[in-house]
C-alpha cells in the first residue's frame, strides 16, 4: 500500500499544467482529487513518475448557468455539485447523482473533471453526463476543443483525451426532464454493480458498469421514443452489451439487473 517514488509539481494555471505535461511526457499524470489515482498508485497499478497537481486551480471550481446550459469547472468537487442550489434548480439529476458517489470524504475530494477523465465504467457521474447529452471541454497545447460525451469514452479507463490535454469544463443542457438514477450496490460507499441513468423522460438512458465504458442504452431510448412501455423498453436494456464478470456479479446477473433497474428508472422518470 506504499506507492512507488514519484516527483510532484504544483500547476499554477491550466497552461502551466499543460506545459508540465508536455515537459514530462506520458510518465506524468494530473492529480485532481486523487481519489482514483492515489488508490491505484498505492496498489502500484499506476506508477507515474511525476504528478502535476491541479487541485489548487480554484478558478476551475464553478457552476454557471445560462442560455440553457450548465457549465461546470473541472475541479468542482462532487460535494459542491451535491449542495449547489443553482445545480439543484438547473440540473437536479447531476446534483442528485453526485450525492450518491462514495462517502462524504470521497465527495469532498473527488472532482467532476477527475471522474470523467478517469473513465471508469463503474463511476456514476460519467454515465449521468452521458445520459444528459453533455459535452466535455478539453485544453491542450494547441488550444481548446469540445468533445461530445458520446464520443469521449473509448475503453476501460480510456478516453479520447491526449496525454497532454486537460479537461477544463463539463457542460450539460439545463433541465433534466423526467429523470432518475438507480444505483445498485452492496455497501453504501461502493461503486455501482449496475447503475442506470435516465434523463429527458427516457430520451437519454445510460448504463453504469455494463461494459468497458459508460454506455448509452440506445435500444431502450429507441423503444421509449417509439412509444413502448417501461417494461418493454427495459427488456432490451442489456441487448448487445458485454458486461464484466466480477465477485459481485457475473454477466448474466448484471444483464438481469440492468433490465430490472432500467424499468424502475423509467417508471420513476415518468415512463409508464
Amino acid at each position, binding site marked *: 500500500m*506504499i506507492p*512507488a517514488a514519484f516527483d510532484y509539481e504544483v500547476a499554477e494555471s491550466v497552461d502551466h499544467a499543460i506545459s508540465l505535461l508536455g515537459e514530462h511526457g506520458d510518465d506524468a499524470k494530473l492529480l485532481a482529487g486523487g481519489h482514483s489515482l492515489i488508490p491505484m498508485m498505492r496498489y502500484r497499478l499506476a506508477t507515474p513518475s511525476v504528478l502535476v497537481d491541479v487541485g489548487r486551480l480554484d478558478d476551475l471550481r464553478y457552476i454557471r448557468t445560462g442560455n440553457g446550459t450548465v457549465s461546470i469547472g473541472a475541479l468542482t468537487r462532487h460535494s459542491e455539485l451535491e449542495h449547489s442550489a443553482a445545480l439543484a434548480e438547473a440540473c437536479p439529476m447531476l446534483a442528485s447523482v453526485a450525492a450518491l458517489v462514495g462517502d462524504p470524504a470521497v465527495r469532498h475530494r473527488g472532482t467532476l473533471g477527475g471522474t470523467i477523465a478517469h473513465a471508469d465504467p463503474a463511476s456514476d457521474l460519467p454515465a449521468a453526463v452521458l445520459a444528459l447529452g453533455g459535452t466535455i471541454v478539453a485544453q491542450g497545447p494547441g488550444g481548446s476543443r469540445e468533445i461530445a460525451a458520446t464520443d469521449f469514452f473509448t475503453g476501460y479507463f480510456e478516453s479520447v483525451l491526449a496525454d497532454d490535454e486537460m479537461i477544463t469544463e463539463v457542460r450539460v443542457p439545463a433541465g433534466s426532464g423526467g429523470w432518475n438514477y438507480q444505483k445498485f450496490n*452492496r*455497501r*453504501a*460507499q461502493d461503486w455501482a454493480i449496475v447503475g442506470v441513468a435516465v434523463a429527458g423522460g427516457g430520451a437519454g438512458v445510460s448504463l453504469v458498469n455494463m461494459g468497458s465504458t459508460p454506455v448509452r442504452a440506445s435500444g431502450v431510448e429507441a423503444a421509449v421514443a417509439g412509444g413502448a412501455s417501461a417494461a418493454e423498453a427495459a427488456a432490451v436494456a442489456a441487448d448487445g452489451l458485454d458486461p464484466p464478470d466480477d*465477485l*459481485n456479479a457475473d454477466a448474466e*446477473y448484471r444483464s438481469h439487473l440492468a433490465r430490472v433497474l432500467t424499468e424502475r428508472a423509467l417508471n420513476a422518470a415518468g415512463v409508464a
Partner: protein
Amino acid sequence: MTITEEAPGHVGSRRLRKEDPALLTGEAKFIDDLALPGAIWVGVVRSTEAHANIVGIDGAAALAIDGVNEVLSGEDLAPLWGEGALPCAWPVTPDMKNPTHLPVARGTAKYVGDAVAVVLADSRYAAADGAAAVVVDYEPLPAVVEITDAVADGAPLVHADLDSNECYTWGLWGDNAPAVDAAFAEAAHVVSERYLQQRLIPAPMEPRGCAAVPSPAGGELTLYSATQIPHILKVMTAVVLGIGENKLRVVAPSVGGGFGCKLNVYAEEILCSALAMQRGAPVRWTEGRAEAAVSTIQGRGQVQHIELAADADGKVTAVRVKLLADMGAYLQLVTPGVPLLGGFLYHGCYDIGLYMFECTSVFTNRTPTDAYRGAGRPEATYAIERAMDSLAVSVGVSPEEIRARNFIGADAFPYESAAGLVFDSGDYQTVLDKAVALADVDGRRAEQAQRRASGSSKRIGVGFSSYVEMCGLAPSRVLASLDYGAGGWEAATVRISPTCKVQVVTGSTPHGQGHETCWSMIVADKLGVDPDDVEVLHSDTAVSPTGLDTYGSRSLAVGGTAVYMATEKVIDKARAIAAHQLEASEDDLEFSGGVFSVRGTPEAEVPLAGIAFAAFTAHDLPDGMEPNLEAHVTYDPPNFTFPNGTHIATVEVDTDTGDVDLIDYVAVDDCGVQINPLIVEGQVHGGILQGAAQALYEDAVYNSDGQLVSANLGDYLVPSAAEAPRFRLDSHATPSPTNPMGVKGVGEAGTIAAAPAVINAVVDALRDLGVTDVDMPASPQTVWRAIADAQGGAS
C-alpha cells in the same frame, strides 16, 4: 458518626470508558507511532504463487534502490533461528502432523503471502520499494486450494514429506456409535444438512506490526508488537530463539483490535527479534493493509455435515457431526484447536442425549487459519441453528416451538452436556420469549403473509438463532485433557498507595475492549474509592510479568475475577490493620464505603486512606505483618462460563434483485452479571455486525490457482455503520455460579449468534418460493440465483 449509606455502586452503571479520550484525540500510541531513530526497516517479499519451488532470488534491482541495504533469502536467514520454528501450542492428537514452519520459507513457497525473502532498508518506503523490486524465480507446483480438493483421490500434497494432506482426525463419541445409529434408525424425522463456512479475513482497524529494540547496553531485547498476547509471545519468542526469558520484555502498545488474529506468534515477530539481536539495532516492520489479507491468519474455512434424529414431536434424540476443516498451509499458534472449541457445542442449547462429533483437518495451499472472533463456536451455532429450522419445517412447527421443545430446562442447571461439559446457568426459554416479544414476531409474520398474498417482490423473513457458548477459557486441567500447551488461569495484583490511590496490574491484555474502565469499576466498588483513582496497568511484561492475555471472551470471567479476588485479599490485610488500630476483633469489623467500623460502636472507625498510610509508614502494624497494602492472585477457573441468548433477525428480500436488507435485529443475551452495560452493548453491536458480515458480505475468495481474489477492502466487503441493522437489545442475567461476580463474558456472543439468525431469516423470506438454503455470504447474486434455481432455472 455512623456509616449507614452504601457508596453508590459503579458496577452495573453505563460509565463512559476511561480509554476513549486518548484514543479519540489521537494521543494513544500504536506500533507504527513509535519513534525509533536508526531502526532497520524490514520489507517482506511474499510469494505470488500458491505452491512453487523457489528456484532463485535476485536482489540486484532492489539493492540498486537508494536506502535498500540487504536482500536476504530463507537460506541466508536460517542460522538466525537454527532449529527453531514458528510454534503451534495445540497438538490436538498425538499423531497430528505439524510441518516445520520457518519464519521465511526455504526451498518451497506454500501459499500466496508466504514470506520468501526480506529486504532491510533505511525507511519504510525504501523497504516497500525494495520488496517490490526483488525478482523471485518460481517453478510452480500443483496447488491444493479448496478443502474438498485436499481430500480428493490423487490430490497433490501441500507438504511433500507428509503422505497425505490430512493433519489430524479428532472425535468425541466415546462408545456412542451404536446408540446414535439406533436413534437415527428409529427417528421419525431426520435432518441431514451440509453447510459451508467460507474463509474470513479478520481486518482489524490496525493491521499488525512489530519492532524489536535491543537494550543500549546489549544482551537484552524489548519486542513491541501489535499483539493480543504479550505474555504468551514472550515465552514463545524466548523458546523459539533460545533467548533467556529474563532478557526479553514484550510490550503491546495501544492495539487497534484483533478479533483473534493477533492471538498468535508470527514470522515477523521472530524475524525482527532475531535480527535485532544479531545487528544490535532496532528492527521494525509494519504490515500493509493489502499484505494483511494474505499474511495474517484467516478465520473459519469448514465444510460441515450435520445430522439430527428426532421423534415425531420434534424432540431431538441424537446429533451427528462431521467436519472438514481448513488449516491452511501451516499450523499457527492454535490453528488445530479451533474446530474443537466448536466441537463441544454442535448440540447447541438443546437437551440432546446422544452426540457424535468428528473433525478431519486438512492442509491447503492457502494462508493459515486460526482463531477468529468466536473460534469454532460461530460455526457450531450456525450448523445447529440452521438444522433446527430444517427440523421445524419437517415437523411442521414454528422455529420458536422447535426450540422450546428441545431447550435445556431452566431447572436443569448445572447441566452435564452430552459432550461432557457442565453448563453453569441459564433460562433459555425466558430469553427466547423476551426476544419473540421484542421482535414482534407475530406482527412480522402477518406482514410476511400479506406481502406473499399480494405478490409483492419485497419479501419479509424472520430468522432465529438461540445459542450457548463456552468462554472464560479455561480450567487448566481441562486444557490439559485437550492437549493444549498452556494453562487457563489469569493473574492480578492490587496495590494501594500511601495516598490511597489504587494500582491494578492485570495479566489480561486489552486491545479495544475497555478493561481499564471495567477493572476500575470493580475495584472502586469493593474499596469504596472513585474509579478515576484506580489505574490499570497491562500489556507490558516488565510491569505485568504474569498473565495469559485476552481472547476467547476470557478477560472478565478469569482476569476480572482475579482482580476481584486480589482486591478482597488487600481488604483482608487492611482489615487486620484496622482491627489492630481500633483494638477490635477482625470479626467485629464492617467495611463499607471505604471505611472500617466496629459493629455496634459507631464512633470506632477508620477510613481505608488511614490504613493505606499506616501500611506505608509501617510504624504501627500488627506483629509480623509486612508493610504496604498489596496482594497478588492467580486465579484458575473451576469451569468455563456459558453465555447464551436468542437473536432474531428480520430481513426484507427484494426478489427482483436478490438484495437482502437487514431491517431489524433483536438480541437478548445472558452474559451473566454486567459490569458496564454500555460496554456490553458495544460488544454485542460489533459482534452482531461481524456475524452479519459473514452472512451477507465477507468472503475470502480464492481462484483455482490459489490466488486470493478479494484481496483488498474494495472487494472484501467489511460492512460499515451504514449497513448495520437497527439493533434492539435486551438481556436476562442468570449469574454464573462459577465465579464470585456471576459474570460470563460477551466479547464473541454477537458474532456467534448472528450469522444463522440472518440466513434463517433469508430462507424464511423465500421458503414459499421453494428456497431451502442459501450459501454465505448471501450476496444479491447468490440470493437471486437461489430463487431462480428454486423456480426451475435462471430467468
